[in-house]
């Protein structure tokens, strides 16, 4: 452009068409960048039993130090035929950024419904788990900022829990805690569900110590553990509280209970 200039002294732009410099911000000026993510706090938990799975989450929704809502469920039934999801057999829990969690849930639910219509049968937990991983990884470079846990019963009728990171890495586990108080609850679960660091007294010295034998927990024991875990988390984490939503998945369907937690 400048080489055709009428005025050889001015080596800058000649016309009012735009070919000016891209940035006209002064030196040191701060530019406000939009951050598409926030953390809405809360915590989730899932434990698999021999023939059941218990999923749980608190119902507080925060932003910063404010409580936005005291009743905002984090557990969703997935893949039912109706809007009330009464014939669903899979539960998804999401924690992290609430809007992404909601979007993720709607995506997975729509896909499970499509599967049902196409194949004439509900999706297995295993298939649903793989699909959820794919959904998350499809947004690898603009991720859903949500920690998901999927629960249900596997083909043999055993309890199944699949846990995820925001970009889709997943594994099947016996138990998993997610969200704000995950670091508080998970060690408790390691000890109480998988009997980590529990040894038979006087069974030996050092490495000769015998580990306590693992056994599947009963449903009552698991429900008690869940309540204790959340009571502990509420005490020590400000983003957890208000209500405990718990879903128990058995071969007879999904039972849902809502219990109060401390509201402070």
């Amino acid at each position, binding site marked *: 452009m400048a080489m*055709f*200039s*009428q*005025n050889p*002294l*001015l080596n*800058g*732009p*000649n*016309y*009012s*068409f*735009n*070919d*000016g*410099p*891209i940035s*006209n911000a002064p030196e040191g000026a701060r*530019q*406000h*960048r*939009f951050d*598409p*993510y*926030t953390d*809405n706090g809360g915590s989730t938990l899932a434990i698999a039993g021999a023939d059941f799975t218990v999923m749980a989450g608190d119902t507080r*929704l925060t*932003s910063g130090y*404010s409580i*936005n*809502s*005291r*009743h*905002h469920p984090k557990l969703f039934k997935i893949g039912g035929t109706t809007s009330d999801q009464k014939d669903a057999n899979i539960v998804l829990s999401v924690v992290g*950024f*609430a*809007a992404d969690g*909601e*979007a993720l849930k709607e995506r997975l639910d729509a896909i499970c419904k499509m599967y049902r219509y196409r194949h004439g049968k509900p999706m297995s937990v295993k298939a649903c788990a793989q699909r959820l991983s794919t959904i998350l990884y499809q947004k690898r470079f*603009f991720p859903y900022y949500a920690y998901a846990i999927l629960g249900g019963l596997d083909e043999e009728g055993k309890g199944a829990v699949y846990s995820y990171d925001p970009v889709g890495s997943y594994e099947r586990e016996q138990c998993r805690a997610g969200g704000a108080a995950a670091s508080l609850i998970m060690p408790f679960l390691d000890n109480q569900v998988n009997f980590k660091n529990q040894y038979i007294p006087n069974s030996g010295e050092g490495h000769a110590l015998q580990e306590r034998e693992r056994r599947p927990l009963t449903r009552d024991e698991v429900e008690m553990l869940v309540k204790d875990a959340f009571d502990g988390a509420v005490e020590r984490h400000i983003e957890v509280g208000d209500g405990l939503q718990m879903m128990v998945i058995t071969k007879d369907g999904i039972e849902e209970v809502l219990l109060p937690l401390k509201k402070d």
Partner: protein
Amino acid sequence: MDHRPQAWGRPRDDVYGAYDASYLRSTGPKTATQAPVVTGTSVIAIKFKDGVVMAADNLASYGSLARFTDVKRLRPFLGTSVVGFGGDVSDMQFLDRHLNELAIDEAYEHETTASVSGPAPPGQLNAANLHKYLSKLMYRRRSDFDPLWNQILVAGFDSDKKPFLASVDLRGTAFTSPSLATGFGAMLAQPIMRRYAATEEDAARLSREEAVKVVKECMKVLFYRDARSLDRYSIAVVTKDGVELNEDEQLESQSWAFAERIRGYGTQTV
């Protein structure tokens, strides 16, 4: 003589200097709203026995300048719901136009059929539907990195004909509660409203008069403490009979006696 037609009729560079075209910026990355400019402050709302009360003041600020003092930030929808906007005013006006189109389409699609209980609302979109629509719209815009810089409250009735109140913000985060407040109201008004409607059951026992009184009290507290607020405000009451909207309410019985006792900042030296 310049033989290029593009240059004819334009100020000559050798006389006026080169034209600074940098502000035109048609190349380079697309820049969307990066910050709100003209803004509205808090919107507050509380559910009661048979409806919802919502209020927001009539001020649009330009930074700390009280720029426009007659801005209507509560907007009725189809005569059955109310939408309250906090945040950027131009984005609010965009949404307002968009909702107008939606309301017209909706009114054409479902023609009014008068029933025994009175005239039916034009269209079938209730507040819960509208909130879902707005939350999807806001989430889509944030995912495109072109957010509508608003916090929105939606009041009305849900599909079960129960009072409905919900919020959505610029990131698409949507939630409901018996009482809601945006901006400064979340810190100053929400604790007061929660005293009267902590749970849905509490809200279902609250009378209309009590709810209006609480909201007016909260608007007063906000005017006392929020520097970007105004004593002229709009208040809307949504019931099954429709929306009663007063856009020129004046804050009453203010008492600034407490201000004398404030110490620690300002001009006093003690």
